[in-house]
């Protein structure tokens, strides 16, 4: 997994959680796919193994991955049902940021929605599962 670690960002375990979660929720990783071993990913990223273990625990806690005894860590089978709520939750901080910025710049919510619609037209229509 080509995870990018920035030295100036959030804590390293958080960066790993975010990037693995993105891969799972966006469908790049599928149910039952195996994640790299803690040791393998630690060596590859040159990151303390405890940090990887912590990131995996966090993903397990979120229900996105599951540990199978002695074999490794896998993308959870039940991810599909959970993602609707989870995807909404992931949008939260970005929506808050957008709202704060638009208020500071003097747009009300209706104007913001209109702006969103206008920008949305620039993107190809969404045809995946909703």
């Amino acid at each position, binding site marked *: 997994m080509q995870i990018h*670690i920035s*030295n*100036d*960002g*959030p*804590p*390293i*375990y958080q960066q790993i959680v975010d990037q693995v979660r993105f891969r799972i929720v966006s469908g790049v990783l599928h149910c039952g796919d195996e994640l790299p071993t*803690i*040791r393998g990913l*630690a*060596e590859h*990223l*040159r*990151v*303390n*193994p*405890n*940090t990887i273990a*912590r990131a995996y625990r966090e993903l397990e806690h979120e229900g996105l991955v599951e540990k199978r005894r002695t074999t490794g860590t896998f993308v959870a089978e039940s991810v599909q049902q959970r993602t609707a709520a989870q995807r909404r939750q992931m949008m939260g901080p970005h929506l808050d940021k957008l709202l704060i910025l638009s208020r500071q710049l003097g747009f009300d919510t209706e104007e913001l929605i209109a702006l969103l619609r206008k920008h949305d037209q620039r993107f190809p229509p969404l045809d995946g599962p909703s």
Partner: protein
Amino acid sequence: MNEHTDGLAVNVNGLSRSFRGKVALDHVDLHIPRGSIFGLVGLNGAGKTTLIRHLIGSFRSQTGTVRVLGMDPVVDCVNVLKRVGYLTEEDSLPTWMRVGELIDFARGVYQDWDDVYATKLLDLFGLSRTDRLRSLSKGLRARAGLLVAIAHRPELLILDEPSSGLDPLARHDILEAIIRAVSDEGRTVLFSSHLLDEVDRVCDTLALMRVGRIIETISVDAMHEQYHEITCRSDSTAAPEVSGVFGWRGEGHEWTGVVDSAQTDSNKLELPSSVTLISQHSITLERWFAAKAGHERDNQNIERSNVPTEVADVR
């Protein structure tokens, strides 16, 4: 053997050392649990190398005790050194040797030398037994030093600024070797470095040294949780004074400071009315280091910069 009962690879208590009356180490306590990657950070001259030299038996303690893998590294020098791998920033390899001769020499010294592993490392590092150490680049010579430090699979690997002045690929190999050493059956690594982003990635615990003392030992996770950085706007151009916030840095009206949440509730900062909070964010190890290692100097600067503002207030 009590080394297995205390669970510490390194156990230093009350170690002090002076050179010609100049204090180099001042009541240092250092406890490194087995299986950890322990970072030692501090400015040049803080005492990191002096402390490390005590661990490998080059210096005898003047006061205090030093135990490495449960043994006294001066009394039990041979037994300590055969279980320790050591790499320093200095180019201390015998440069007249060829790589193969260096390996044969090390194999004779270390009874646990692993030939298969050594050959694998040789290949991985792009070294050849016939290379003369003198004619190798600095990065390749560091890899040869690393090979000799780890091919006997030491229980404790001590790296004193291993990557300073090396190219990124050589640093990459060193960090990977550190991680591999620890994920291999819980070996222990002590790593001193100025490259704080590397320390942040690799270490689980760190100790900060300043003028011969260890002023803080903290897990990297706890550091990120206990400390964060705030950005403020101040009506005056002097550094703000807020309790629990230190290491102010900035100019003009905008300042950033480091909040210690053990000292103050970071959600209820007592900001003076002249100071407005702009943002709070997570802290980098580098910012924490600068605030802690340069703490005293910061205070002096604040005292000095207060003088003109007091005059201005009189009007």
